[in-house]
């Protein structure tokens, strides 16, 4: 026994020593485990993006000057709000987002130059930006060449799908078809008059609308007219409207032209509480310029309105007003721009990497349930599934939602039978 005890003590010591020795490598591992929230930079960034242990750089590229500044301000503000909210919640893969902002100056070549700068010089992991189709077309080759990642917020004409772009606004069929169905069914509309600004988006949208009116609704298009961007004389077309008396005036006039159009419409005695008018280009931002009284009664078709009643939107509107002032209005594009940083964050975290290829691969199927518009899902074609809503303009500059599509509508940027 004594011998045994004598032998036992050292063996117990040895065991403890061995355990301690075995624990050493484990202790060496311990500091690693405390960094689990922020995986090593080398692992999450294999393509030389601007990612450090604590920061990741994201570009914001909108017009701060020039004619588009008034429209793009909201989008840019929403992106900054989203990024600050993400940072407050701990960032992306444990890294705070650092913003590099550039001014596209309402000039398409400048957009291309700045996009290249953001990708080549600043190595931005993602860029939130652009508003007009023209600016997107200008930067698209740059993003494709340097394998960048762009989140584009505006509702647009479709006919495009790039590996390097996510489209957080609606493409034309999502926006148009449901609203035409609604106005046909609810208001019995049969005849339509199209009025648009003369560039690719209104022309493509009207082409889709015309096919739908003629082939699906069996109605007629009694007129289709286009005006240059910035045009302010609509009296001749207003006379034609009085002559043809269409059931619905369908408009996609953009920017400052809207102000002249609705004022002249009112001055000519066309009362929008009696005459149906459906627009796909007027958000709360535009009404700010048009004046609520001038457009009250018109129907607008968008996926988002500031007046939407849901908890997500109430939080979003409150946060937006807190950051940018109570007087700011929030339009469709502003909300779509707000989605970009969150969709990117979710994709990065799902992929466990900032690498553009991995983020792109992780994106399809992602659902964002906290979106102010309700919830959205990324389709493999890089557009979002979203609801379409029709709302009536009120004299106070807000909208009252009168129709909401029951389900999310699938994005279809290359619609068969509408081209």
């Amino acid at each position, binding site marked *: 026994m004594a011998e045994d005890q004598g032998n036992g003590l050292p063996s117990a010591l040895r065991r403890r020593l061995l355990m301690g020795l075995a624990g050493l490598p484990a202790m060496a591992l311990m500091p690693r485990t405390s960094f689990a929230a922020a995986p090593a930079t080398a692992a999450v960034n294999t393509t030389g993006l601007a990612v450090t242990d604590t920061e990741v750089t994201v570009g914001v590229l909108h017009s*701060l*000057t020039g004619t588009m500044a008034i429209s793009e301000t909201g989008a840019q503000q929403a992106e900054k709000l989203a990024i600050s909210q993400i940072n407050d919640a701990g960032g992306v893969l444990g890294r705070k987002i650092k913003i590099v*902002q*550039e*001014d596209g*100056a309402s*000039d*398409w*070549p*400048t957009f*291309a*130059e*700045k996009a*290249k*700068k953001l990708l*080549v*010089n600043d190595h931005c992991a993602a860029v939130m930006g652009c508003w007009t*189709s*023209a600016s997107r*077309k*200008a930067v*698209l*080759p740059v993003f494709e*060449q340097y394998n960048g990642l762009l989140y584009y917020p505006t509702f647009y*004409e479709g*006919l495009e799908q790039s590996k390097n772009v996510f489209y957080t606004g609606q493409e034309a069929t999502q926006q148009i078809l449901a609203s035409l169905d609604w106005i046909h069914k609810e208001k019995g509309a049969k005849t339509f008059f199209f009025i648009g600004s*003369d*560039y*690719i988006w209104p*022309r*493509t949208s009207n*082409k889709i609308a015309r096919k739908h009116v003629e082939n699906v609704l069996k109605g007629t298009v009694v007129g289709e007219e286009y005006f*240059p*961007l910035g045009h302010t004389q609509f009296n001749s077309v207003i006379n034609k409207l009085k002559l043809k008396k269409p059931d619905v005036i369908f408009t996609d006039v953009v920017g400052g032209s809207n102000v002249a159009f609705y004022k002249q419409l009112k001055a000519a005695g066309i009362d929008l509480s009696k005459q149906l008018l459906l627009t796909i280009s007027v958000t709360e931002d535009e009404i700010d310029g048009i004046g609520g009284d001038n457009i009250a009664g018109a129907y607008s078709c968008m996926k988002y309105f500031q007046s939407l009643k849901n908890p997500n939107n109430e939080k979003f509107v409150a946060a937006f007003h807190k950051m940018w002032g109570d007087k700011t209005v929030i339009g469709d594009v502003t909300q779509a721009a707000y989605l970009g940083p969150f969709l990117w964050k979710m994709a990065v975290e799902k992929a466990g990497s900032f690498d553009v290829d991995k983020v792109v691969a992780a994106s399809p199927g992602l659902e964002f349930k906290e979106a102010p518009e309700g919830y959205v899902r990324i389709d493999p074609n890089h557009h979002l599934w979203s609801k379409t809503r029709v709302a009536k303009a009120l004299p106070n500059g807000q909208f009252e939602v009168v129709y909401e599509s029951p389900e999310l509508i699938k994005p279809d940027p*290359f619609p068969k039978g509408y*081209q």
Partner: protein
Amino acid sequence: MIRPASPSTVHDNPFMKPMEWVSLALLAAVIFLVLPLCLDAFRLNLAGKYLSYAFVALGLVICWGFGGILSLGQGVFFGLGGYCMAMYLKLEASSVENTKIQSTPGIPDFMDWNQITALPWFWKPFASLPFTLIAVIVVPALFAFVVGTAMFRRRVGGTYFAIITQAIAAILTILIVGQQGYTGGINGITDLRTLNGWDIRTDSAHNILYFVNGALLVACILFAQYVKRSKLGRILVAMRDKEDRVRFSGYSVAGFKTFAFCLAAVFAAIGGAMFTLQVGFMSPSFVGIVPSIEMVIYAAVGGRLSLFGAVWGTLLVNWAKTTFSESFPELWLFGLGGLFILVVLAFPNGLAGIYRTYVEPRLTRRAKAPESAPTALPHAAE
């Protein structure tokens, strides 16, 4: 310093004065050595873009500085040259293979979006590179000739001419934007890829194009210098200062003016073509009134009487534009505006004026070269 008056023969009138050779050497050193060595690929490509605007400023020096014809529509010629080149590049990029998702493969994408199903007739010749290169020069020259002849024959000059050129710039922009099925509309012609099979989007291609651009610019400067020192150049200056005397002496004023205008147009067009190659697209935002006036500002900042000043002015203004806008994205336009006001108020003859007043006299004194008489500062035209 004072040279006895001697009959101006060609022998007495060297191609360039020593100081001008120095200026040229300095400019060439900056373009071909300093910038390529100091700048990374992205910034060098930007510098190449700026230098393509310098062609326009150079043309303006001849037309406005020497000839006294202020054109506020040089964007038209820049655009024509650029569009000719863009049409060629777009056709090459729109191969059936690249455009197979379209309803009509093989035509440019914007035509497909606008329900055009066949290539328009005026696009067809631009499938050929030699035709395109000729068109880059000939189309703007012809257009300038028609405009110039129509105006100058009727003795439209000064402010009226400036207004008409501006109207032409506006008309052409509206035409391009309105005919989007044929021109790409407000988006312009985008996504250009290869020049005769050579990918122009790579860094090495940008480098090569930068040097081609620089060489062309120097060649244009030398040609402009040749015009300046020739009898023709002197008639231009004479015309600017006393048009009636030149006319009464039996010269066809309209002819000389048209020539200067056409030459400026050709320079602008070469710049436009080089711009398209380096930037990879062309849009109506280079054709309109605003860019045309901006181009006049380049020449004004550089000094409208100096060929070299025009190039420096273009570089300075564009560099300031890029730097200000990167550092102060929300305030940069104020900085740029301030720069213009400063130049116009303090240095009406631009950078070249500063050089001539302050730098050159000292250099000349130090060099003590008997041949380098002080350059007579021509009177401001307007």
